[in-house]
């Protein structure tokens, strides 16, 4: 018989990321948005400029919490035509690395593979997602989520129509 040991910090973060992935795959977008802090941000740089800064450069997505909520409203509606009917997605999260950055915040990086299937086609989004997580009473909140695609262009999907 083994004794359950306290999960390591990385295991705790992985549990959080796995839960996040499940919320997205299950299209529970309101709950997903609730993972963010009020000053949270979600950024996806363009494929040709992975280090793009939304203040100076063109990026694909730069959502504050207001636009993130609006994105969830849009994707939950029947009028986000690229995603209605919804695509099927399956997310794989791995290579999780965690660094304490003081003041209760964690710098997390992960590798992500999202397969998306719709309208007879299937293709992956591949890349890394970096987070700044903030601890709260129940676990973690997302203060910053930067999803960087390894794709050279959006040649398979034509858009970033889901949350990557």
């Amino acid at each position: 018989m083994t004794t359950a040991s306290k999960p390591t910090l990385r295991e705790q973060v992985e549990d959080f990321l796995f839960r996040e992935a499940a919320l997205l795959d299950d299209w529970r977008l309101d709950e997903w948005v609730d993972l963010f802090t009020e000053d949270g941000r979600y950024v996806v740089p363009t494929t040709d400029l992975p280090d793009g800064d939304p203040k100076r450069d063109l990026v694909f997505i730069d959502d504050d919490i207001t636009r993130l909520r609006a994105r969830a409203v849009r994707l939950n509606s029947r009028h986000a035509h690229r995603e209605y009917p919804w695509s099927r997605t399956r997310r794989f999260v791995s290579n999780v690395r965690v660094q304490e950055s003081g003041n209760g915040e964690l710098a997390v990086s992960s590798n992500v593979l999202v397969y998306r299937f719709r309208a007879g086609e299937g293709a992956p989004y591949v890349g890394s997602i970096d987070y700044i997580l903030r601890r709260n009473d129940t676990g973690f909140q997302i203060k910053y989520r930067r999803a960087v695609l390894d794709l050279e262009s959006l040649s398979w999907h034509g858009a970033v129509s889901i949350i990557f």
Partner: protein
Amino acid sequence: MEIKDLIIDDRQKGIFRVHRSSMTSTDLFQREQEQIFSRCWIYLGHESEVENPGDYRRRTVAGRPLFFARGRDGQVRVFLNSCPHRGALICRRDEGNADVLQCFYHAWSFNTNGELIGVPDEEAYGPNFDRSELGLKEPPRVESYRGFHFVCFSPAAEDLVTYLAGAREYLDLIVDQSEAGMRVVRGSNKYTMKANWKLLVENSLDGYHLVPTHQTYLDYITSLGADDSGQTVANRIVGKAKALGNGHCVIESPVRSGRPIAHWHPLFGEEAKEPIAEVRQRLVDKFGEERAFRMADTSRNLIIYPNLVINDIMAITVRHFEPIAPDDMEVTAWHLVPREEPAAMLETRLDSFLTFLGPGGFATPDDVEALESCQIGFRATETEWSDISRGMLRPARSTDELQMRGFWRQWHANMQGLSKTNVQDAPVEEMEPELALATDD
């Protein structure tokens, strides 16, 4: 079906139909490459993309691998990206800076003027080997207008300014918004649509689809208080559509919300009010009230025939698309901004761009879906024709389809081997010269 029968254009009855084989046939696709893409002026890039001597950018234009570079003399030159020796790509990165570009295959090297400056073991060649004949080849014609560089693969083509016809004034309306000139910001949108390239021409100038297709975007900006026009489908501010000659077309509409150039809106914040008022005053002083009104208070979607779209709307996007197959195109979109604009205004512009435009925005993904949906629908070949007759018997509004007919008429002429055509509808009563507020039906 013969090419002359691909379009039904009855200007008296107001019927305009395009046969859908024009968007599915590989033979017609091949003919487009010869009759249009090898003969027209095709957009290559913007001068600001190669700011410094030695800067280069790689592009595919009209199917050809090209790159353009700014030489040590400050001149921008365009080269076919193929080694004169045996064909390998000389430029193998999308962008960079170099004094010398060396072919990796046999190590021939070239300067940014395209001159062959190094050949390993050159003595193995005979006395007639002439380096000066083996420099990088340039497209037959290369010209620019106000920072926009174009190439043309037909040596006999008319000059670029003549080719631009009425579109030239619209480029001026955009470039003149800046004192210090326009620049392309870093980062571009590269995406693919599995749809015919002409569907994107139509879509880029389609005021009619805005409300039904982009409802989620309109809901979003309405929720922010940005769209204060009180417009509904039944009560909507519409502008005008124009055919500008040579297949270039435009729709021009009164602004729906804010425009970063000189049309303030509460969403921009109080602190932006003063600087925007100053810019507007500068435009009035320099160009007069009427032209300043057009620059500041109207938006425009412009097609430079055949495959360049410039949308001067909530931000300025430059969109170029390369046909790959009848049902496939690669799209690249850039964001054009005034060089002198302060950081805070640039942020507003970038934000405006992202909300609507781009494959991560609230609108473009749905355009991708619409176009791919049309392309799949074309497989139902018994439905042979697409209808593009909206507004044909009235002074064309921005929600009509004159601008698409103008494009298609030029396309039809080119496909039949004609260079010029009348791209206008039959004359109708003159509309008010200024943009009219009209109730759309």
